[in-house]
């Protein structure tokens, strides 16, 4: 009898399907790895098991008995504890308080027993003694810790539950090699004790190091579950990609085999900053350069750094042969850069203002006009919006009256009033619908054909493969591989993104 048996678990958020049909069989004393592309539903499945997300359907059996969980507390009582990918720590509380938050040890009178609190925390801290780094005392506040140390606290908090089923959702994403080794040796001990462990990671070598069984999830559906002896890297990657004939055809047909563009307008060497390390590339006029890899490997940071919104610590940047140093967006705009973020609400839309006001700021900045006459502005703004087939009732209407896709078009139109030389697209299609996407990319291609240089980061791999001339695959802040021509396939992209991860 399996310890945990999930069948056809599904979960919907409005129109998005987070999980379509999640199946999982978890045995006693095994380390069970879940793998799948970003957004495939791994975390959702884990949260269902840990009771923090209520499934919309499917069966859930614990030790052969069907159960219904009403919240994380109920799951804890049944011996299930989850390491949350986004962490579940209280920043201003101490390490010891965080580790023991669920069961705060008390004296007979009901007051907290500090000695016992620290003793219990020490017990778990000591397991990581050699790798925790400085300032890791039980009474230190979590807020002051480094990201890897916070992750270790969340690991300790999960271990402290002493639950029979332990789930770790990307616990190693910020850890270094020695910390991972230490964690893995603890996992192996737990396995010997007969505990069941679910482990998620995007690092292929780690997975093959620790797994007893690998289950692959694709688009919210469990597609395969194999013992480690029966599988290998490429089988796993193939399961993750699946058969996608129409997508593959699309990629092939759209893959632009344009003539070699040689006139490079932007050359970067050894760019380093907060989340990027030693990034170099050259970008030609009329080229669309794609940035690929797992989420958050430095792609957005690179774009924001080029735009002067993030600090560049070292490296050189040549724009048409002249050295430039991006210090702030204003200077970057004057140099001919433009930046479109997928996070419209944070970076793009000026909420509560009219469409006209949303399109005009770059025009004002570049033309230094003192007075603004709506009739004159309209002559500049309307063609820019028209080029994108933006649907709007009038220029005076509020930006919030538009759909997400049309709002994004307005944000892009902002740059078209005074066309830039270099367009930086930071996941520009986040949350916009299919037709808007294809219109957008048609325009991007048109701009490139007119000679604009474009860097595109997209979290959707299909988009990236279909619309870029060349792809730089990012890993941990640096470029691990360049894909061009024949090599520009989904398989190679995944392999570079996953296998190269360290």
């Amino acid at each position, binding site marked *: 009898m399996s310890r945990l048996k999930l069948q056809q678990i599904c979960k919907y958020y409005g129109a998005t399907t987070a999980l379509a049909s999640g199946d999982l069989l978890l045995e006693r004393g095994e380390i069970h790895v879940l793998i799948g592309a970003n957004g495939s539903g791994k975390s959702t499945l884990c949260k269902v098991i*840990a009771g*923090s997300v209520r499934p919309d359907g499917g069966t859930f059996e614990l030790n052969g008995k069907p159960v219904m969980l009403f*919240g*994380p*507390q109920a*799951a*804890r009582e049944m011996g299930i504890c*989850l390491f*949350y990918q986004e*962490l*579940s*720590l*209280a*920043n*201003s*509380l101490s390490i010891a*308080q965080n580790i023991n*938050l*669920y069961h*705060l040890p*008390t004296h007979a009178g*009901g*007051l*907290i027993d500090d000695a016992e609190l620290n003793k219990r925390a020490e017990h778990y801290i000591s397991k990581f003694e050699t790798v925790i780094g400085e300032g890791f005392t039980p009474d230190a*506040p979590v807020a002051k810790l480094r990201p890897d140390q916070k992750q270790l606290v969340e690991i300790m*908090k999960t271990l402290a539950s002493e639950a029979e089923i332990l789930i770790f959702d990307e616990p190693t994403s910020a850890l270094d090699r020695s910390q991972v080794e230490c964690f893995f040796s603890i996992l192996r001990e737990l396995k010997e004790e007969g505990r069941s462990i679910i482990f998620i990671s995007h690092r292929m070598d780690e997975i093959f190091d620790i797994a007893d069984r690998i289950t692959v999830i694709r688009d919210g559906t469990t597609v395969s579950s194999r013992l480690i002896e029966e599988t290998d890297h490429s089988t796993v990657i193939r399961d993750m990609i699946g058969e996608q004939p129409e997508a593959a055809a699309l990629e092939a047909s759209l893959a632009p085999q344009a003539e070699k563009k040689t006139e490079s307008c932007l050359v970067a060497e050894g760019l380093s900053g907060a989340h990027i390390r030693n990034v170099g590339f050259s970008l030609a006029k009329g080229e669309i350069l794609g940035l690929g890899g797992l989420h958050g490997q430095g792609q957005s940071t690179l774009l924001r750094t080029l735009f002067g919104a993030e600090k560049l610590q070292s490296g050189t940047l040549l724009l048409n042969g002249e050295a430039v140093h991006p210090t702030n967006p204003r200077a970057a705009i004057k140099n001919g850069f433009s930046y479109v973020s997928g996070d419209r609400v944070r970076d793009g839309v000026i909420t509560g203002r009219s469409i006209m006001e949303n399109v005009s700021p770059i025009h004002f900045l570049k033309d230094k006009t003192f007075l603004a006459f709506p009739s004159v502005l309209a002559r500049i703004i309307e063609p820019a919006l028209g080029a994108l087939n933006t649907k709007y009732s009038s220029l005076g209407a509020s930006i919030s009256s538009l759909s997400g896709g049309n709002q994004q078009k307005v944000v892009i139109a902002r740059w078209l009033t005074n066309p830039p030389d270099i367009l930086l697209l930071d996941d520009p299609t986040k949350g916009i619908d299919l037709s808007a996407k294809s219109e957008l990319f048609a325009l991007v291609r048109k701009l490139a054909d007119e000679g604009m240089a474009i860097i595109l980061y997209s979290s959707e791999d299909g988009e990236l493969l279909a619309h870029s001339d060349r792809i730089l695959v990012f890993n941990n802040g640096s470029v691990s591989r360049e894909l061009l021509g024949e090599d520009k396939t989904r398989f190679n992209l995944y392999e570079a993104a996953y296998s190269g991860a360290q």
Partner: protein
Amino acid sequence: MTKAISFKSRMATLLRRFPFIPALGMLMLLFILNGIAEPNSMTVRALKGVASTYLALVFLSVGQTFVVYTADIDLSVGAILSLVNVSIVVIMSQFGGEPYVVLLALGAGIAIGALCGLMNGIVVSGLRMQAIVATFATSILISGIALWVLPVAGMPAPSLFWKVYGGRSYGIPNVFFFIAILIALLAIMAKTGLVTKLLAVGNGQLSAYQSGLSVTRIRIYGYIICGIFAALAAFCITGDTASGDPLVGGAMTLSSVAAVVLGGTALSGGIGSAFGSAIGAIIIGLISSLVFYAGVPSQWQNLAQGATILVVLMLGVLASKRINQ
């Protein structure tokens, strides 16, 4: 160099354990300024006067803290105070001022405070309404009940009541004993698991929920504690003014919020100390007495008081920023 760093980090650790340290410094400063402006303000008699006038605000601010811990707010504390004030005065005058009646009235007062807190908790946490608007609404409701209980101000409290509050034992004013009891109570409460859980909820409700805490229930407890402290504050007001007034607490609500902030508790929740709020309340009291002693003309007193509070707030923010850097 390293010495300076370790000093700074030691200060930061200290500040984290005792977030009220900047407020304590400010309190000292105001004491000294008061003493300079009017040496007589340092006598036991004058101190007793300040203490008995502001003890109600102290209790009210302490109560407010437990709600602010979870990033909520309670704008009905003043109304609860008024309701408890008129209720106990009416009970005592209905049944006579015997000691057992006084005790009964106090019990009833605490029950009323707790019930009001429970109502706020259910509205905010159970029904998920915005704390600031929901408690504003309940404050009007509670004031309405207070006006129904006692439509006009002025019903006197029995002499036993204000004699105990204003009297002395062993030569020491009784209010000082009340302060000592409050400090002991706060020291004990700070060690309860509930305070740690309130702070955890304030740090992030989702994280707290995911950690297996019953967030809804914990927030309701915060409001109940706040209601009980508002009742205790009402006892102080009743002892100080010796009468019932259905509108007595209205102006104190926002002072209690200011005191909480002055005491180093973040309105965004998750960090702070109830003891700091007590100090913050006394700071507000000392500022008004300083403005009075410094001889500020009456038409300028509000302006001077407001400006001083702003300055003190700013100094507190600067101090903690410098240390935490």
